[in-house]
């Protein structure tokens, strides 16, 4: 979006899907925040209540979103481009696997035992490594083990962070 190169409006059309989506995104966030802050008392100017600022910021965010969306009808800009679904699935999935296994987890009937860094580390590297197009499975497996070992040495022993290694095997 560029505020300066004002183009002669030749009919309304979407000149930047990126900005339009950005505007809609801001409005959606603002509406969500306003909805959830609804119950909070705004208070008075003399004594600001907990709801005053969240609501005020939400209103401003929404207003800016509307402006951005409207601007996308008038000013040339970028279009939305492709997404890295593979990256989202594998890299973020690997992170979630780490979160689930490092100290165990329990949601309803699903129960993951605490596996510690010795398992969670290689798991994270192996799974997220699949996101790369030029992955080589053997290289990745070796790297997963070596990198995890290096991390254990660095974080657990050199920096002595309290991180479980393998409670099921070593009890630490």
């Amino acid at each position, binding site marked *: 979006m560029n505020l300066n190169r004002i183009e002669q409006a030749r009919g309304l059309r979407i000149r930047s899907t990126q900005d339009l989506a*950005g505007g809609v995104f801001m409005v959606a966030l603002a509406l969500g925040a306003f909805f959830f802050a609804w119950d*909070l008392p705004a208070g008075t*100017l003399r004594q600001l209540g907990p709801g005053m600022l969240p609501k005020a910021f939400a209103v401003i965010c929404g207003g800016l979103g509307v402006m*951005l969306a409207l601007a996308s009808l008038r000013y040339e*800009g970028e279009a939305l481009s492709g997404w890295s679904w593979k990256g989202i699935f594998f890299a973020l999935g690997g992170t979630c696997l780490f*979160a689930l296994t490092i100290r165990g987890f329990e949601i309803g009937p699903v129960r993951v035992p605490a596996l510690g860094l010795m398992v969670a580390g290689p798991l*994270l590297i192996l799974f997220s490594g699949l996101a*790369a197009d*030029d992955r080589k499975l053997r290289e990745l497996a070796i790297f997963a083990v070596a990198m995890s070992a290096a991390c254990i040495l660095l*974080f657990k022993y050199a920096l002595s962070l309290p991180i479980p290694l393998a409670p099921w095997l070593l009890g630490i």
Partner: protein
Amino acid sequence: MEMFSHLALGFGVALTLKNIALCFAGCLVGTLIGVLPGVGPIATISILLPITFGLEPTGALIMLAGIYYGAQYGGSTTAILVNIPGEATSVVTTLDGHQMARQGRAGIALGTAAIGSFFAGCVATLIIAALGLPLTRMALLFGPAEYFSLMVMGLCFAVVLARGSILKAFCMIMLGLLFSTVGTDLETGQERLTFGVASLSDGIDFSVMAMGVFGFAEVLRNLESPEARDVVKGRIGRLLPGWADMKQAAAPVLRGTAIGGILGILPGNGAVLGPFASYTMEKKIAKDPSRFGKGAIEGVAGPESANNAGAQTAFIPLLTLGIPPNAVMALMVGAMTIHGIIPGPQVMTRNPELFWGMVASMWVGNLMLLVINLPLVGMWVKLLQVPYRLMFPAILIFCCIGIYSVNNQPLDVAFTALFGLFGYLLIKLGFEPAPLLLGFVLGKLMEEKLRQALILSRGSFYTFIDYQNRPISLALLIVAVLILVIALLPSVSKKRDEVFTE
């Protein structure tokens, strides 16, 4: 001279064996991570934040500052050797630096950058030491209203100086402010926007957000396209610039230091502006401007000095006023708070060892960079050849372990992934995430000061523009309005576009 006795105190702290070692380690790992293409100082600091948790505050801050310089300098190395700027401040270095590298003068380019940075760092350290005391005294006169106005001005600068669209930068700052309201209300104890999630009652964790939005989102973006890295093959060549090169680089270094040092103090993202301004200036006053873009040494010396000077003077608002001028300093605030230090004018009086030790260690850090980077440049080149398919899982595991060890909470790791997705969405929608972080950090401070000011004035907004009792507050707000107006005036913003697209 008061300044020198303070510096002496600082060097006494900084030159203990332990702190030298920490500074060295910080610079080394900072360079190590910062040299990776696509990992700028913000991501580097967020990734490495956890390794300082175990240290006592002074040591931790010295190490963090070292990490910052290392990351900043690592970005220049990548810019010169791979033509990928680590972050906005090294964009201009790619122009002539990479050309020099292609002509077989990579070593000279790196050497010039290092020497220029070192000189700029020395000067900037002195500036900080000189300005520290008077500015702190001034800050102690500030009431809540002045602080609030100052932060408003800072955010306005951040909007104006952000890259890309002003409207989008505005969006990000407001979103950051909105995020800052999540958590328990300090006065009434009521939970705000926490959705009943227990770990949100303390607010959104700062490191979770920074690592997600900067670390993870960057990984996702890099995974989009198969990498094309243009690592300079062949010899680096000798590192020390010869007499002719030195002579050519000396004046640009001086000018770059001055420009960068002044712009770095600006709230908003002043440090980014320095290299651009320096490059433009060198090109304007050069006898033969056509050499620029084809490997002119002035195009490396000036911007690199400006870069480093600005990176360092950016500490001034943080250390004296407690207000972070840019996203990196916002990270520093986060780090300081984790160590139980509230940045601001009180730090200098309450913890003089910490304050002056950190200032002195800045100079030590700059010396370290010179010592680390020049001899080890071969190692950095090797590191640049590590394929991304292995690099990003390594970044992820560092982030995961780091986030986990902040609170020993696995849920934080999952939240970081969520913020990673959010950050990626922001990138896709063309939003720059740095102002978000700045708004987030300033939001908490602003709310506190706004409340105090309004309570003191019995609910009257007039207190912010009361020219008789609060001239400073009024002046700051006028400056804020002025820069916004100037930025929105067509002719100036056209120039701004030119500066940022060049």
